[in-house]
């Protein structure tokens, strides 16, 4: 053991030394007049819960935002990720964790506000809120800007592989995701709201179903699509599209730009029918242990260099006023990142749904995912009872057998 241990320690030490060279930190220039160091030496840990692939993390020479924040403030950050708004909601609702900062999307923020799950922000601690563009303030989900500070916005488009998809087919708009020609080559959103939104757009309905009938219609559309879908994915889409595992995938525009940068065969288009315009914002859940430090984190995220680094890394449109001018032209003039007013007029934001429609959608999503002809309601209780009886019989038979052998 000793030999092996020594060997391992040596390897470890070597690796650590080799690794010390890169990643030397350059201090971020923050705006004056804000005391970022007031929590130093207080041994605070912030639990930040964000989408995957949604922050500049130091890869390929980018800024490691979390580390910069830690160095600047002396606050430790426990950074974890979720993959859908709904799983974030489920986790918070179950008392699943004491998070300090979360970054949900518009409709989810509204829902959380309605259910009293968010803490009111003290904007006195977030002076950088001034840097947020007015177009991203006072949104329907948070009209008085009491609970959220915008982090990004963007639209949903379709990523496609130019070598596998006929450009002429793109004119079908969302319908291309139902095209049997691409059966087995289509990836689909693995979350209810985004999937239903696409189906609704296909049907010419609003993204915000007004009745359970609309939900059912969309669900039927999604079931129909199942035959051509290869897989339901969230961030797995990166590897699958870059690795050319599939031809088509609807996804958020920012991530589409990232994918296109990694594989030149990829393209992205915004369907002519219009799409979902989303906004994600930073919030503090009720009962957060370190509210003021969390506000400090939110403020830090709005600092110009930080917001710029994040925007360049994740390619989502930034609501921070100063960022767009600082971006390289290929991003700031990108139609995907900053679509023109004409197209934006076709887009729709997701709103909080009434409870009955929401739960109808939740249930319909389970149905879509496991879809097949629904059996009779009584089948299951009967099967269950039969199984239990069979199990009991088996145990009894064994016991009887044993008794017999004992005598």
């Amino acid at each position, binding site marked *: *053991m000793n030999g*092996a*241990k020594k060997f*391992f320690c040596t390897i*470890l030490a070597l*690796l*650590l030394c*080799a*690794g010390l060279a890169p*990643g030397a930190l350059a201090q971020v220039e923050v705006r004056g007049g804000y005391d970022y160091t007031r929590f130093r030496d207080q041994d605070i840990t912030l*639990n930040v*819960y964000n989408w*995957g*692939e949604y922050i500049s993390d130091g890869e390929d020479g980018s800024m490691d935002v979390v*580390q910069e924040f830690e160095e600047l403030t002396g606050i430790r950050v*426990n*950074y*974890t*990720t979720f*993959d859908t708004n709904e799983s974030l909601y489920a986790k918070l609702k*179950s*008392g*699943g*964790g*004491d*998070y300090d900062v979360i970054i949900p999307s518009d409709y989810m923020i509204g829902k959380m506000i309605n259910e009293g799950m968010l803490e009111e922000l003290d904007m006195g601690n977030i002076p950088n809120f001034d840097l947020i563009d007015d177009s991203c303030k006072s949104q329907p989900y948070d009209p008085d800007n009491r609970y959220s500070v915008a982090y990004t916005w963007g639209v949903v488009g379709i990523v496609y592989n130019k070598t596998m998809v006929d450009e002429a087919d793109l004119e079908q708009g969302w319908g291309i995701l139902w095209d049997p020609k691409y059966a087995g080559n289509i990836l689909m959103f693995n979350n209810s709201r985004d999937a239903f939104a696409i189906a609704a757009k296909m049907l010419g309905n609003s993204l915000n179903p007004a009745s359970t009938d609309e939900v059912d219609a969309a669900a039927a559309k999604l079931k129909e699509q199942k035959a051509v879908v290869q897989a339901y994915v*969230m*961030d*797995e889409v*990166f*590897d699958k599209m*870059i*690795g050319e595992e599939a031809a088509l995938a609807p996804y958020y525009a920012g991530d589409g730009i990232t994918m296109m940068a990694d594989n030149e065969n990829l393209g992205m288009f915004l369907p002519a029918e219009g799409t979902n315009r989303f906004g994600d914002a930073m919030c503090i859940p*009720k*009962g957060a242990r370190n509210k003021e430090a969390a506000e400090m984190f939110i403020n830090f995220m709005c600092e110009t260099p930080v917001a710029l680094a994040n925007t360049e890394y994740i390619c989502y449109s930034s609501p921070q006023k100063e960022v767009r001018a600082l971006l390289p032209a290929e991003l700031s003039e990108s139609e995907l990142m900053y679509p023109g007013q004409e197209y934006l007029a076709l887009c729709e934001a997701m709103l909080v749904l009434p409870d009955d429609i929401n739960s109808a959608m939740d249930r319909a999503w389970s149905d879509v995912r496991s879809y097949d002809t629904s059996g009779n309601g009584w089948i299951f209780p009967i099967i269950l009872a039969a199984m239990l009886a069979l199990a009991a019989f088996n145990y009894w038979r064994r016991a009887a057998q044993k008794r017999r052998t004992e005598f």
Partner: protein
Amino acid sequence: MKRGRLLKRVYMVAVFGFLYIPIAVLIAFSFNESKSRAVWGGFSLKWYVNLFHNEMILQSLAVSLFVAFLSASIATVLGTLAAIGINNMGRRARGAVMTLSYVPVVNPEIVTGVSTMLLFVVFNGQMSKFLTALLGTEVRLSFGIVTLLITHITFCLPYVLFNVSPKLRQMDVHLYEAALDLGCSPRQAFFKVVLPEIMPAVLSAFLISLTYSIDDFIISYFNSGTVQTLPIAIYSMTKKRVSPEINALSAIMFAVILAIILAANAFDAARERRLARALRRTQWEAGQG
């Protein structure tokens, strides 16, 4: 017969190939310069370097080790005590306890996971309300390291019991009584006679608990809250753009496991040799006498 032997060999190689080739590929690609999982781009150690800079992985490893050691220790103590107590029970009572102990072993992990999750949801909800009313300030209990520890201890406990119980039953009952007769207090008798006798079983129970705890994903997934253990961190890695750091991690884990197993084996072999030598010496001395 010859052909049979050849067939047998081919079959064995095929099955072991099936078991090991995926792991070998994983390890091979940890040295790949390029990010691709299928194309070789030259030799590089950079993923190892990155791995040792990946704070999320290092932190989760620390959490995993902490949880594993603590829960294995607690489970070993509780389980050993239980084994002794159960050994003194009547047949019927023992059967009932054993049945209860089998529940977490045979239950699907996901059922164990969600059932404890529900327990904590209900308990935390009620307790938070109660404490809030009692203390007058908002109290919010949530999932975290405590719930994680509790679940880990729970699924380790039965394994400790099943490891220690047979050893206790094998033990000569009179040994303990003899110790008492020779003037030991019950306490002394336990620590000086019983415990050394069952020590190998206790130790192996501890090790089994340790490995189960480090390896567990499903139960932790439902009960960890903000805390990330290593398997949970690995899971969150596979849900994003996968970095070959994950290959480097696999290679290191494989190497560590291999080292531990080889060391344990060498240790065993050395002990056997020592025993054999001692045996020979006593025989020789007996021969002399």
